[in-house]
């Protein structure tokens, strides 16, 4: 039987990367993302005994992080930037530095948050539609519709970009 400290250390080592990545895309500010991840783990520590199934840990932590993110808007003393896509791209260290990836990230930033978040939960967290619906508190059909539209918008933006590049090349 693991003690609390060991369980906590395992969670931190296993999920910090995923949480940070999700937090960066959620708040678009790496410094705030770090705070969010730290705060998420602080809360996780306090509620660690309520986590019965280790397999549910990732979902549990992501839910906590989303709540923390929502909570920061309830604190009027801080002003958080919504992140200009260019500034954001400069301040975050991405693994993929190709032009293709840059264009894709910019496109992702341009789509509306209500469409982007279900897509991120699907791609980054590997959630099913049912899980996303439960996380966002909307119906499954609404999730399906939002993901579908998110992808469509992404494709539209990318297609436009491609056309621009081709025109410039001509």
């Amino acid at each position, binding site marked *: 039987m693991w003690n609390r*400290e060991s369980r*906590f*250390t395992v969670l*931190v*080592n296993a999920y*910090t*990367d995923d949480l*940070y*990545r999700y937090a*960066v*895309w959620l708040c678009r500010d*790496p410094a705030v993302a*770090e705070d969010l*991840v*730290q705060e998420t*783990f*602080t809360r996780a*520590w306090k509620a660690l005994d309520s986590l019965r199934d280790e397999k549910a840990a990732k979902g549990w932590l992501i839910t906590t992080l989303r709540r923390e993110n929502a909570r920061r808007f309830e604190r009027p003393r801080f002003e958080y930037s919504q992140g200009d896509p260019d500034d954001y791209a400069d301040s*975050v*260290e*991405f*693994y*993929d530095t190709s032009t*293709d*990836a*840059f264009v*894709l*990230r910019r496109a*992702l930033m341009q789509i509306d948050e209500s469409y982007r978040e279900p897509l*991120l939960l*699907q*791609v*980054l967290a*590997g959630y*099913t*539609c049912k899980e996303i619906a439960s996380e966002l508190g909307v119906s499954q059909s609404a*999730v*399906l519709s939002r*993901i*579908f539209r998110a*992808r469509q918008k*992404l494709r539209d933006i990318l297609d436009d970009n491609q056309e621009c590049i081709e025109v410039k090349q001509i």
Partner: protein
Amino acid sequence: MNCMDFRRITLTGYDDHDDGFSQHRSGCRACAQFYEETQRFNGRLEQSTRVRTPDDLKSRILLHQSMRLEKSYRRMRNVQYTLVATVLLAVGLVIGLLHDNNRMNLQEAVINYVATGGTLESIGPDTKAGDIQSLLTEFGMSMSGELSPVLHAERCQIRNKKSLLVQVEGRHGPVMLLFMPADPVSEPIAIEAAYFSGLIAPCPKGSVAIIGKKGEDLKALQKTVAESVEWF
């Protein structure tokens, strides 16, 4: 499964595919191509959104938590120490209060008793002979000979221990004999105060303090007590 359903699942279902889905994929080339493109796009999206976690973030989280833990342990320890100290202090105070008189040495206790409660003025004979006898019996002794008559006898407390005060007639007035069965002494202890003098002498059961006015022959009285009191 028709093409529309297949594409809807491809776009939204991620890995949530069933047999019908697989059959349609192998039967419809266009949909299979759509599926491959979508998978490639998902891969690109996943790859492009990867960010490098700051190197020290995990260590900072663990350090932060261990510091919080240490702080809470320290707070808990402080509370425990405070509780233990409070309990010890309370126990000390209670023991101190209960045994305040016991801590006073026997000599001081006798002087204190005589100066505040006892009297060297004659207060007898107001105790019936039968009562005196029963009191003496209670303390396991009897008196005879030169110490009679007993003017007065009563139970008293010396250092919170049950003792017996017996007043007899001395040469210079009443003499107090304080029998203290629970306070033995190994040798006689002299008592000197402003208006009286005395000594505490060993006896078969504890000790006896003999107090008289200045000038009383205490040695003689000690000898008389030793001869006249019979212990049983």
